[in-house]
């Protein structure tokens, strides 16, 4: 028999993250942040550029992602295929990825070889060439990648949902780009994008793992110190989106067996410190078996088999999202009704201290768990710096959550989780199933 006494736990934290971090800036503007973890002889090198789908206008959607592909191809010192050939030959993990607010590249490799990653990333930053001859095959690769999204039913729902939720903010565009834009990419557009956004002053270099500050400084200076930096002004759409004036709804019909419901509410961005309360509300509603919506939709009514809730805010005002897998299409109205009732209750009654404590404990544990992998901690540092302007942002975020009160939760739900601020997306089977 397990006798468990519930107490607020004060975890035995190891030393604070700050004590393991060092940072410096090169004269050309390259910001460098290091996190020391010498428990394994491994180093993770991460370069993030302040460019992503956020910076793309119609006609250019997906171009940051296209550039990410092309940046692996050819520099004035490396031939196509060299990046992967060289990194594979030392057993490095490496890849690139494009997001709304950033484009990132990483290499994880043995401690005695990590300098190689700096050499390659410095070449990517300043020495890419984009010969016409190499563009078309990669353009076709990206077009095939775009088609993969078309054939994934929930991705299709997601794209329509976000385009419905935002009229102006570039969060409405998929990172991979709209098909018509992808089809019309040219090598000139790729070159233009590279010239505009890739330089030391528009990048962050994060190095985590078994590398000491002196060594990092010397090596970074060696490879990046001579590169020329130009500050890049980035358009700011933080306040551009007009408020919703009532519910918006989109229905997608595809050849699927299982329907999906997505419900979103516009929530504040990172400049409003209350935005983290959205994470608390999401956990109360959807994290685990004891959460309110799991209990209502899965356990009590049996209308759904799965519920997920999260607050999707990276920088600009974003979307609080509820995703449900109904047992049948016919149950969708009942499910929506139950969800809205639960939200209404949350806007009227303060959450219990114990319910809040559960969430705070989960957040604190996650904060410790996130340090297990040097790639995860690199991602947290880099994305915090880019989206909030301070790498410590993810620390402040969890500290703020520890101070959230039931009254603040009530206020947040009243202000943001209401019908006039709602977007609904539904994926349902078309006539011919399977």
């Amino acid at each position, binding site marked *: 028999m397990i006798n468990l006494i519930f107490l607020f736990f004060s975890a035995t934290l190891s030393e604070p993250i700050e004590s393991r971090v060092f940072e410096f800036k090169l004269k050309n503007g390259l910001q460098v942040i290091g996190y020391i973890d010498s428990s394994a002889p491994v180093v993770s090198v991460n370069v993030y550029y302040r460019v992503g789908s956020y910076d793309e206008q119609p006609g250019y959607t997906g171009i940051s992602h296209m550039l990410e592909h092309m940046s692996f191809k050819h520099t004035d010192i490396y031939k196509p295929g060299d990046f992967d050939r060289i990194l594979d030959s030392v057993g490095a993990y490496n890849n690139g990825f494009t997001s709304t607010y950033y484009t990132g590249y990483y290499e994880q490799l043995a401690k005695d070889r990590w300098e190689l990653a700096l050499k390659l990333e410095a070449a990517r930053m300043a020495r890419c060439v984009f010969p016409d001859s190499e563009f078309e095959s990669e353009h076709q690769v990206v077009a095939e990648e775009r088609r993969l999204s078309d054939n994934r039913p929930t991705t299709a729902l997601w794209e329509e949902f976000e385009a419905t939720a935002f009229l102006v903010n570039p969060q409405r565009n998929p990172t991979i780009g709209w098909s018509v834009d992808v089809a019309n990419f040219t090598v000139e557009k790729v070159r233009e994008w590279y010239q505009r956004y890739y330089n030391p002053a528009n990048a962050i270099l994060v190095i985590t793992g078994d590398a000491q500050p002196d060594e990092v400084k010397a090596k970074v200076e060696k490879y990046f110190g001579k590169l020329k930096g130009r500050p890049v002004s980035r358009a700011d759409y933080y306040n551009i989106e007009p408020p919703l004036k009532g519910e918006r709804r989109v229905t997608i019909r595809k050849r699927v*067996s299982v329907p999906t419901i997505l419900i979103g509410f516009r929530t504040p961005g990172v400049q409003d410190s209350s935005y983290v309360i959205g994470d608390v509300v999401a956990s109360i509603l959807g994290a685990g078996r004891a959460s309110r919506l799991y209990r209502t939709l899965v356990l009590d009514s049996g209308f759904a088999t799965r519920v997920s809730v999260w607050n999707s805010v990276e920088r600009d005002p974003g979307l609080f999202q509820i995703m449900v897998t109904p047992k049948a299409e016919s149950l969708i109205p009942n499910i929506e009704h139950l969800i809205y009732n639960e939200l209404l209750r949350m806007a009227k009654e303060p959450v219990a201290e114990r319910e809040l404590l559960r969430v705070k404990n989960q957040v604190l544990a996650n904060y410790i768990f996130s340090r297990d992998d040097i790639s995860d901690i690199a991602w947290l540092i880099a994305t915090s710096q880019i989206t909030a302007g301070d790498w410590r942002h993810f620390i402040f975020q969890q500290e703020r959550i520890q101070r959230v009160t039931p009254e603040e939760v009530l206020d947040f739900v009243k202000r943001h989780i209401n019908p006039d601020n709602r977007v609904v997306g539904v994926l349902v089977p078309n006539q011919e199933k399977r």
Partner: protein
Amino acid sequence: MRQEGRLWMIVILTLGILSPASPLPIFRDSLPNGLIILTYEDHRLPMVDIAFTCRSGAAADPREKAGTANLCAEMLFRGTRCLSADSIASILDFLGAWYSSGTNYDHSYLYLRVLTKDLSTGLDLVAEMVREPLFPEGEFTLARDQVLSSARRAYDYPNSVVSMEFDRLLFAGHRYALPSAGDTSTIPLITREDLIQFHQANFVPNNCFIVIVGDVDHNLIKEEVSRRFADWQPGPVKPLSAPVFYLPEKTKVKLITRPDMNQAYIHFGHPGISNLDQDILATRLMSYILGGPPLSSRMGLAVREYAGLAYDVRCWFDRRLLSGAFRATVQTTKPEEAIPKMFAEIRKMFESGANQKELLKAHNYFTGSFPLSYSSNRGKLDRLTELEIYHFGTDWLATFPDRIRKITLEEVNAAARNRLKPGRYLMVIMGNVSRDQLNLPDVEWIE
């Protein structure tokens, strides 16, 4: 917080301790009832990862009730003799723990990550869940509905569909023919009694092991595990039956026409290898050279990098206890160009093998990336689970690079000749394409 009651007599048989060949802090012990304990100490962070593994997975399912093992694992969190599903979730959520359970063909597992201060509670829960699950009727119905919904959803994704169809063709009659979590046709047939029987037959200490990684002392772990598991009685375990493969004389193709799709999804292959076979590492190196990384393998260069025909193209050998499949996959708008290129690369590897330069690159990749795979606690947990499942030995992590470097070009090329069967594939194609467009010579079409 801790388990109360009488003091258990601790009897531990120590099989192996930190050996000179293994400088890593890995410890393997066992209890007299056969339960193996693997510990990897890592004191960076105040947290512990625990994986309790039963060596019976989906391959041990009754064929007509595929999905039994998966549902059994799923139900471990849903009620025990002393704790309801709500109580278990409430305790774990309150601790901020990460937890999950699942199955693949070779094993079933229960996973838990807790802060070090909660280790005792975590072990109490693990012991209770694996030894005394109750499989409550209401929870069983709910879990079966959820698993069935996931199985139905798999048919909405083209990659899953072609993979499932391929398995049906290659492994016809064997449990491997259906997904490890079961299928829409078999999950509804599973009863609560099936789970109880599966648990009784397979969850016995001599068929299980526990891996613990993180901020722990292995001597204390031995005591803690023994206190909770030493009185668990061993039992007989039924051996698995190996699949009988169907290898066609010439390539057979099943075409699924889907006018709503804008790409063809292709999955083909033939019988593969067991993870226990002597030439497994040589075969993995060969497969890596042939169709490993999409940007630098032979197949990747031919189909993606030079021709721009696909985003992802690759091939691999399943890694299972019993012989699995050799598989190659691609998604493309031009299957008539991509498929011949993939066929040609496989045949070239079969006939001419790899060269020394390619082997050196593969050696370097395998030896260089292997330590990265266990730099995190979760990675350590996965590697230790793998080495125990496949009986690789506790020195596996330390000796793997040497084992790889010793594999010669002759061994890699012998693996190509012995393990590849060019021209004798089973193939599934799904998309808006016709037989004429595919223009595949010398194949037999499956109606």
